């Protein structure tokens, strides 16, 4: 129909910023889902994960800001460290945690 004005195209070409913000939001929601599930059984593990989720949500709102390139490696390192930390905690739980009888459905 109508072509977008030139200045709109320039501020967010290909909607790249918005798509990246949405990708951050999806990542935050993934962490929130994990934290929410763990919160029931292990509140002390669930609360930090929910905290990380909130932090990722906030970082995602900054992700699209122009000139945010300097802090990018640190923000992405936070995600990598958080996922690795969660997986190491999960590994410890499966190897040395209490034996689970399984969920009876």
């Amino acid at each position, binding site marked *: 129909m109508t072509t977008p004005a030139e200045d709109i195209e*320039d501020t967010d*070409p*290909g909607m*790249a*910023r918005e*798509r*990246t913000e949405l*990708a*951050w939001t*999806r*990542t935050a929601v*993934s*962490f929130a889902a*994990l934290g929410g*599930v763990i919160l029931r*059984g292990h509140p002390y593990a669930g609360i930090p994960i929910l905290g990380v989720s909130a932090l990722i949500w906030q970082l995602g709102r900054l*992700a*699209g800001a*122009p000139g945010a*390139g300097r802090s*990018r*490696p640190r923000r*992405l*390192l936070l*995600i*990598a460290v958080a*996922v*690795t930390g*969660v*997986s*190491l905690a*999960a*590994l410890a*739980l*499966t*190897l040395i945690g209490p034996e*689970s*009888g*399984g*969920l*009876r459905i």
Partner: protein
Amino acid sequence: MPRLSRTRRGRTNASRHQDPAGAAESADGTEPDARFTLANERTFLAWSRTALALVIAGLAIVQLLPPFPGVPWGRHIIGTPLILLGSAVAVISYLEWTGNQRALRRGEPMARSRLPGILAVTIAIIGLVAAALALVSGGTGN
């Protein structure tokens, strides 16, 4: 040469938008088009979610699945590799993000990602182990 490699990847349209004033020259290459940086970032975030899903799946298998009758370590045999795979994907995706960003700055061709291969092979092995376990354990034990 850098322009050539981008052309081969079908990014000629994008380089048109590159702002020469915003392209800060430095010792470590040129700041790439923001869209390349953001696409690289999205790829990393997508791999991170994959890693998180693998960890959740492994944890769910060990904690929620009823034990395999006759195979007491059956759940751990499937679940632990999934958690380790999630951990590996998280670390490798960060290293690949760093490498891709460096390649973008220098205008070099990007290295091919090793993650799809690692993911496919590991999940195939886990699938075969799970199938063997399902056959060996024999029924639901009701």
